[in-house]
């Protein structure tokens, strides 16, 4: 799997609205936590929330798989 983490991880932060860079996924979410460089290869890992604050899904995603979008 290709990783170009620096260019994405440096620009993402908690509160950013994001979507998946991979065309197979169609969701929009918000970064709610920066877990730091926890990836096996040092990749930045973020917790993303999709949906409501209470009922939404929260899951981890690698920085290189996320793309910031307008709120």
């Amino acid at each position, binding site marked *: *799997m*290709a990783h170009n983490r620096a260019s994405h991880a440096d620009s993402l932060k908690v509160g950013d609205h994001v979507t*998946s860079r*991979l065309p*197979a*996924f169609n969701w929009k979410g918000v970064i709610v936590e920066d*877990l730091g460089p*926890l*990836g*096996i290869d040092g*990749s930045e*890992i973020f*917790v993303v929330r999709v949906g409501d604050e209470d009922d939404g*899904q*929260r*899951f*981890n*995603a*690698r920085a290189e*798989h996320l793309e910031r979008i307008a709120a």
Partner: protein
Amino acid sequence: MNSPGKRDATAARFQGFARALHAQTADAIALGAHDANYAVLLYRSLTNNTVLERHNAQPNSIADDFGRFGLDIWAEVDRERSGNDERRKKLWALIAWRNAIAHDDIDAKLERRALEPSTISLATCRGWRSALNILATSLDKVAADRCRALGLPRPW
């Protein structure tokens, strides 16, 4: 007596460790997928709405989240090192005290004998910290072994 903040910090640090270990294990397993889409799908599934994100790192929370890897985590941790079952009881004790402090109901829980030990000292807190350090080492090894058992390279 040690400060309440130190007990809370010990519990919080252990929760941070458990979450990080879970995230890394999930990442290692997902990276073993045959393509990028499947890896992302797997990583999301393994980390979706984890218990450790919403609750303290009590043993059942850890068991629930690491169970997603097909792992009976405490059985493996107990096998990994003698005495870990007793250390797990210390984790329960720490979490019970942490919750009593956070919810400001120490007296009520002491009356119900829900806190063990009933008094704590600096030595108690050091004992908890020592137990958690050893549990963390065992958890780390068991998680890495699980990756290997799934046919993946040893991740750390």
